[in-house]
Every structure is written in C-alpha cells, then in structure tokens.
C-alpha cells in the first residue's frame, strides 16, 4: 500500500468531488457572480461590479447585522458549552437512571425549529403566555415582561432558545468524548488520592480538548448562519434588533428583491464561516491530529 495516487483512488474520489463541486463550489461561485448584479430575481439583470459591496458597507444595516451575528455567536458559546459539558459528563456515568434522563434531555433536538419557535413564542407571549403567568405566580417581575418584543432582551432570549435546542446535541458529543477516556486514568488518580474535582479538571477536561474544539467550531459556525428559529420567533424584529446576517441576507434577496445585495451578504457569510473554521483549527492544533493517548 503506497501513499501515492493511482487510478483506482482517483476514481473513488470522483463522486465526492462531483457532489462538492455541484452543490457547494458552483453555488458559491454563482453567489459571487450575483453579488455584482442589480437584479430583482426575475427579468433582466445589470452588471454593476462592486457597487453592491460599496452599498453594503455604506449603510449601517449590514454592520449592525454583523455585530448582532457576533453577539449571537458569543452568547451561543457561553450558554451552550458549559451546560453541554456538564450534562455530557453526567450522562456518561454508568448509573442506570442516567440513560433514561438522557432520553429526556435529547428531546428538544428531535423537534423542528419551526415547531420550537412557534411553541416558545406562545409561551413567551406577554399577554397570554405561560412564562409570564408562571413568573407572576411566583411573584417574580411584573408578569408582563415582553420577552421577544423588547429590543434589549430579544437577542438574549433568542440565543437562550437556540441553546435550549442545541445543548442536547453537544451533550451527546461530550458524552461520547467522556466515554472514550480510559478508566485507567481515573483509577490511577483515585490511587493517588485525587478528589472528584481534581480528576475532573486534571483528566476529564484535558482529555476532552478535541471534543471541546469540535463542539465550539460547530456552535460558532452554526450560529453564524442561524436563521430559521429567528425567522419564526421575531422575523428580525422588534425594529431590526434580531436581524442577524443570515436574516438580513434573506430579507435583502427575497423580500426587497435585491438579489445582488443578498448575494454580497451570502459571500460575507461563507468567507466568515471558512475563516472561522481555519482559525479555530490553527490556534488549537486540532489539524495536527496528535493523539492524547500516546504511551498508553
């Protein structure tokens, strides 16, 4: 088995390369082309070069959308990572009841985003909603908090609902990661007299390094392009308080019928996603694929 390419190997990568070209590369290049057009999606298009790019950075909307997107990414990471990590460690335990609990924790991931959005917007309704009614019965707040219609709260609430939806998935990643850690490490630690906490910080966390990286990359790139739940919950409102980049892209292209501007935002999103992945891998050494289990 040499490491060079022979014709069988070329043949075998053909399907993957073709699919990647047709469904990823080609649409991306088309988006770059569209970004230079003044076009309403039907009728005739006019090539205007970089005009759309100038317009995007000229008005404050896109900048605002970029700031919001970064906020969502940060909030998503902050909400999801610690909770998923702890839940994953907890669920990796061998006690029987934990498997049952795991099934419950997993449920939100099985729902469609639209169902989650509709359900939460009913629960958070300021006039008829469950959340305000519960808080009122507990004498917390005024019972009239406008969760999704308050410009200062909306993005935070949306990020929490996104976290609610995706924590189960990341818990699953961590659960798998923890189960990979050899028991011998913990046994050695116990013999050395380590407490539960110190074995968590000295064994579990370092051993989960690559799981944390994987999960973080998924959270960051996922929230970069997050759209469906926000569309259902707030439609980018109130005002434009939750108009993140993906939302802005959709509105420009399909509501304002300005395919050119929408494509500019799409290209920005694609480039940002790729850069983000590369940077994360670079800074964490994930791409060197070194083993943490050497010598064991």
């Amino acid at each position, binding site marked *: 088995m040499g490491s060079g390419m022979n014709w069988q190997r070329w043949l075998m990568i053909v399907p993957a390369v073709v699919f990647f070209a047709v469904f990823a590369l080609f649409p991306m290049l088309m988006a770059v082309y569209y970004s230079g057009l003044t076009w309403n999606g039907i*009728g005739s298009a006019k090539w205007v070069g970089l005009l759309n790019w100038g317009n995007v950075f000229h008005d404050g909307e896109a900048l605002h959308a970029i700031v919001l997107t970064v906020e969502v990414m940060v909030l998503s990471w902050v909400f999801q990572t610690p909770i998923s990590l702890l839940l994953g460690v907890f669920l990796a335990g061998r006690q029987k009841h934990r498997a049952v609990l795991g099934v419950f924790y997993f449920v939100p991931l099985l729902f469609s985003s639209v169902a989650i959005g509709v359900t939460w917007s009913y629960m958070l*309704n300021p*006039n008829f909603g469950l959340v305000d009614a519960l808080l009122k019965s507990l004498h917390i707040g005024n019972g009239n908090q406008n969760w999704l*219609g*308050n*410009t200062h709260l909306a993005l935070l609430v949306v990020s929490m609902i996104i976290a609610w939806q995706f924590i189960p998935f990341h818990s699953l990643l961590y659960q798998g990661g923890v189960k990979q850690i050899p028991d011998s490490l913990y046994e050695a630690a116990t013999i050395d007299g380590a407490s539960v906490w110190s074995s968590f910080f000295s064994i579990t966390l370092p051993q989960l390094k690559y799981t944390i990286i994987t999960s973080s990359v998924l959270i960051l790139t996922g929230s970069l392009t997050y759209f469906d739940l926000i569309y259902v919950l707030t439609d980018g409102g*109130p*005002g434009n308080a939750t108009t993140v980049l993906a939302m802005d892209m959709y509105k420009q292209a399909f*509501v*304002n019928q300005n395919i050119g501007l929408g494509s500019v935002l799409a290209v920005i999103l694609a480039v940002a996603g790729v850069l983000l992945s590369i940077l994360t891998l670079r800074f964490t050494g994930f791409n060197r694929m070194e083993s943490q289990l050497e010598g064991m």
Partner: protein
Amino acid sequence: MLKRQKALLSTGVGIVLTASVLVTGCGNSSTGGNSSGGSSGTSSKTSAITIWDIQTGASQQVVKNMSQAFNKSHPDIQSTVQFFENDPYKQKIQIAMGAHNPPDIFTGWGGGVLKSYIDAGDVYDLTSDLNSDSSWANRFLPSVMKPVTFDGKVYGIPNDNVQPVMLFYNKQVFKQYNLTPPKTWDDLLNDVKVLKAHGVAPISLGGKDQWPDLMYEEYLVDRIGGPDVFNNVVAGKANAWSDPAFLKANTMIQQLVNAGAFEQGFSSVSSNQGEDAALLYTGKAGMELMGSWGFATILSDDKAFIDQGNLGFSTFPTVPGGKGDANDIVGNPSNYYSISNDSKNKQADVTFLKDAVLDPQNVKDWISIGDVPPVQGIESELKQATYGDYLSFTYDMVKNAPNFQASWDQALPPSEAQELLTDLSKLFLNQMTPQQFSDDMNKYIKS
C-alpha cells in the same frame, strides 16, 4: 384580505418562491393553475377568453359562479378563469406581460404596478367603452376607481370587495367606563387615559407583524396633510418624506406610544395569529385599528362576541387643523380586472367585464359571503344581509370617501416598503425620532 393573506403566505415564502420559479419556468404555456368554467362546445363563432385571478376559498367560488353564469347567457363567448397563489401570481403576470403572452383579462391592485404595464403599452384603455355606457360607468363607487385611473383614463374595473381600515372597539369596555368612540385626536387621548387608569390596554396593536403600525401612519398623514403628501413620495419627489405632515404624524404616534396607548409588549403581539383581536374580544383592550377583515377574524375566533353586539366600529378620529378630509379612508380599495392589449378578443373581454363582473347576481354572491362590493345603490341589500349594520357601515365609509388611499406597502417598491415597515417599528419603540425617520426614508426615493 390582501394583507392578511400576504402575511400568512410569507410564512411559506421559500416554498412559494420555489413554486413560482417552477410556474414561471413553464414560460408561455397558459395551462397552469386550476381552470373552471368553459364548457367544451366550441364552434367557429365562439371566442374564448382567459381570466387570471387569485381568489381563494369562498371568494373563488363566487368568481367561478360568475364565469359559469356568463358562459350560459353568452353562448358565443366562453370564459375560463385560472386561479393562482397571491405572491407567485405577481411574478407570473409580470413575465407573461413581458413575453407578450398574457391572459385576456388579468387581476391586479391598481396603483404603481398597473401603471408600469400601462406605460409599457400593455393595458387596454377602457375609457371610451365606459363613456359609451353610462350605466356601466356609474356602477362603481368613485373613490374605488382612483387606483385604476391615470390622466383621466380608466384601465380597470373593480371585481371584488372593499377593505377600508376602521377603528373597532369593545362596547362593553366603553360602556363600563362611560366612554364614547373618539371623534377627534383629543378624544382618543382622553379615552386612552381613562382606559389606562383602569388597567385596560387602551389600544391593541399587532406590532410584531409591522404592517399594523402602518395604518396609523397612513391615517395620520392623510388627516394632517391630505393625500398629496404621500403622492409626492410615490412620484419620487426629492425629500418627500420630510414633509411636515410626516414629522407631525410621527410625533403624534410617539405621543400615543408614550401615553401608554398600546398593550404591554405590543411589539411581540402578532396580528397574523389574531392575538391583537383576542385582546379586544377578551376585554383586555378597548380599541383596535384594523382593516375590515378584522371583523372576519373576530367572527371566526369569537362569534358570540359579535352576536351579542359587543363589537363597535367607528372611523379614524379627526386631527384638529389638519388639511385632509375627515372622510378620507385608507386600506385596500379592491382588486381590479384589466384587459391586456395583446388580447385578440377585446370586444368579448369588454362584454365580460360589463355583463359578468359585479352584475346583480355577482354582487349578491359577494354579499352572501360577507363582503362589500364597491357598487352603487346596494344600501338596502346590505342592510338586509347578515351583519347588515357592519356591512352598511363599511359601504358608507367607502361611498362617502373623497380619497381611498391604497396601503402604502402595496404602492411603494418592495425595498422602500420594507424599510418603511422597519423604521415605523423603530418609531413605535422610540428607537427612532421622527426626524431620523424622514432622513432615512428620503434615501430610498428614486428620482
């Protein structure tokens, strides 16, 4: 219903867009959509005419009946109606027009879109046909003809029902606090104060959907500055959004917001899901400014509320010192049928418009499903109908209106309309001052 349908449809907009690509992809075949009417007895003398329409449900049945009745009474003309979804239709008709392969008769909303077809020479001028038959010309309410009248020439006739925006109120709540429906702006502020003091939300507003905000803007600007203020925007005059009427209207809107006129959390209340109406009929709110379809919403959600006579309706209050006529209204005037210039059977088309559209039986059918057609002299018919009070009130509003302003978001290009809705939503949240609003909107004027 246009707005409501539009809003509901927007949920599935992705699917609809995809579908529209498929539909329009069919190019010049004219066999898409559901067909009705058209018996197969085509002789050499028969002329066949095709009509494109967008009605759904009970309204669609009314249109089908109209076409079938016409085909029976006119054996020499066979009419066929094809129905399309609202949003894809707009693109389909645009492409069909551009390809010079339109249907004989097409539906539309008048205003800017129709104007662009007229300018391209695609629409048949109905003026001389109407002038030669005064009973036909006088069939319709004058205020409804404006969106299809350009430079004194008429390019379409109304074909369904009127939907003016009115002020609904909860009679029980008003009675409890000895209030009367507000006649003037000061009355309104006073009613707001009283209701607020008793812990009732004075006005219910579906701010999440943004288009309900627009109704306040449309009415206030017309009351303060008259119809010309917005006409200047449509005409693309530089800095048209800086008209003092906009600044004053927006100041008054914020005055209303700051007086606590709207329910807690109005910016996340959805009108498309009937939440604003629910506040009104549950007595949690006193008033609601809504298009006439608001009646149908309450009828389907809480029929007892209407049957017990608890739903009141009134016109938008007047603004002291305003230039606009107090009888002016805003909303959706009607849908219209126009004839394409590419049609080969124009005489048959005109006969169809004259003999079938809003003829006595067609008018009766519209009234039977609770709609008010824009036709002269149907007062007694409306009074005798179920919910006749309401139908008559709607009818009189339209009949007495010197100006019926079509919804701005229909009258403006899509990107300007979208920015308007976003900025208005910010204005209602005090995130934007009236001055900032005008400055920002001025950027969108295309000269």
